[in-house]
């Protein structure tokens, strides 16, 4: 089972997901977040709270976003954990509107 963050997070980083994660499995760089599936308990709490629907699980992962499975696995190991909500990136609201949310 796999839950991943995909490219809709890039340039937004609303971090609502982090506040509902029971096990602190999110990792962050300056652009977006990544999930460590070795820690994630697949509770799916983060999926509905993402304002830009960047998070997908298992067979709901769209075909054109499956490359993010490996990216999440690699980046989450290399980056620090983020367990508190942070301000969204500048321009996040505009980007959210542009994405249609």
């Amino acid at each position: 089972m796999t839950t991943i963050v995909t490219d809709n997070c890039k340039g937004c980083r609303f971090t609502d997901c982090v506040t509902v994660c029971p096990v602190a499995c999110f990792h962050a760089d300056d652009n977006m977040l990544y999930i460590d599936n070795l820690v994630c308990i697949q509770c799916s709490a983060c999926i509905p709270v993402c304002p830009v629907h960047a998070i997908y699980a298992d067979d709901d992962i769209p075909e054109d976003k499956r490359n993010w499975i490996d990216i999440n696995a690699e980046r989450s190991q290399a980056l620090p954990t983020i367990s508190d909500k942070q301000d969204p990136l500048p321009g996040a609201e505009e980007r959210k509107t542009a994405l249609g949310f």
Partner: protein
Amino acid sequence: MDAPGTVSNPLRVAVVGAGPSGFYAAEALLKSGQTVRVDMIERLPAPYGLVRYGVAPDHPKLKEAILVYAVIARLPHFSLLGNVAVGRDVSVEELRAHYHGVIFACGAETDRRLGIPGEDLPGSHTATEFVAWYNGHPDYRERSFDLSAEVAAIVGQGNVAADVCRILAKSVDELKATDIAEHALDALAESRVREIHVIGRRGAAQAKFTNKELKELGELPSCDAIVDPQDMELNAESIAELEVKSNFVSVKNVEIFRALAARGPTGKPRRIIFHFLQSPVKITGTARMEQLVLARNRLEGAPLQQVARETGETDLLRCGLLFRSIGYSGVPIPGVPFDVRRGVFPTQEGRIVDGGGAVVPGLYAAGWIKRGPTGIIGTNRADSIATVKSLLADLPHLAPETKAGAEVLGPLLAARGVRVISVDDWLKIDTAEVARGQPRGKPREKFTRVAEMLQCLGAS
């Protein structure tokens, strides 16, 4: 005298309840940078609240949240006082005397009532009772459920309803390698339930299941999931709801329901039948429940604000077993204000307030007893962090004197004949449960009586 939170005057906080919100509150306190001592008081000898006694046994991955709490329990300056009931073994007044602050994280322990005639006929149960029973909760050990009826109904379309539905729909072979309580497995082995009606008052586009739980109901090995294609003819407002991009959970749910409607029965031995736009209005029967009277509803209101209104027509469903899963309610504790209507401790930013809206100094709430039974495990983390933030902001106004916490409370409880369970005691119980499970191929076989848990610790 230094303010609480300093080396000469450590901040002493009692956290009441050892479920997710209690542990997240404890973690936030212990990582706050203040000099702090956290005593977690739990009514049962076993910690972890609804992760142990609520999360379904066939969702072992979700139970791994416990690993995070086990780490918090080993942090310095954390103590567990298990097998201690606030209001019975110790009063709220005493806690206020021995702690600078008390955080209630005791959850919502009882079900909301439907408030319809016949609700208490034998065969009509709350989902809470059933969930606690199959998870081996000591308070529900002596309950019994007559599973001899072929037709069962579940009122509610959220994740608790989905859990109850799966436990009824799965064969014993599908459950025997989980940590389901032995007494429940034995009873389920004799179950004659073949048809499970899952009833929602609104439509398919408003069902509260998460995608994952709903999908799972459609993919059970020995149970079909049936949706009437007519129920998928949505009203214009519901169609408009599905156009809203942020409503993606409902969009996916409707997609899953449509696929089930298109598939129809495949001949599996058991069947789940989804009902929409129906509300129970009466349960009838003589010695036990025999029939459920359902009012038909239509939706009224703007998209995303639609409510169910009865049309005046009714349907009858013959069923011998009913589980109501329409939400939980908190239970009052003497000495703490209680909002009867909402079933919570009334709060402002986590601070408990009295009937007049005035803050009761030193009392706080977190989790379901604060905001009502919404969200899932992780939702409580942000909630508990917010409450702890309020408590820390209040430090200058809390009682300035030093408090003794468990150093006084421990001996006091011992003098009252209470066997207080520490983290080390719990680890012994935990180890024994895992060992009991091993020969049966189960991750653990829970002790389902408090006496058994205490017995496993010897006479000490």
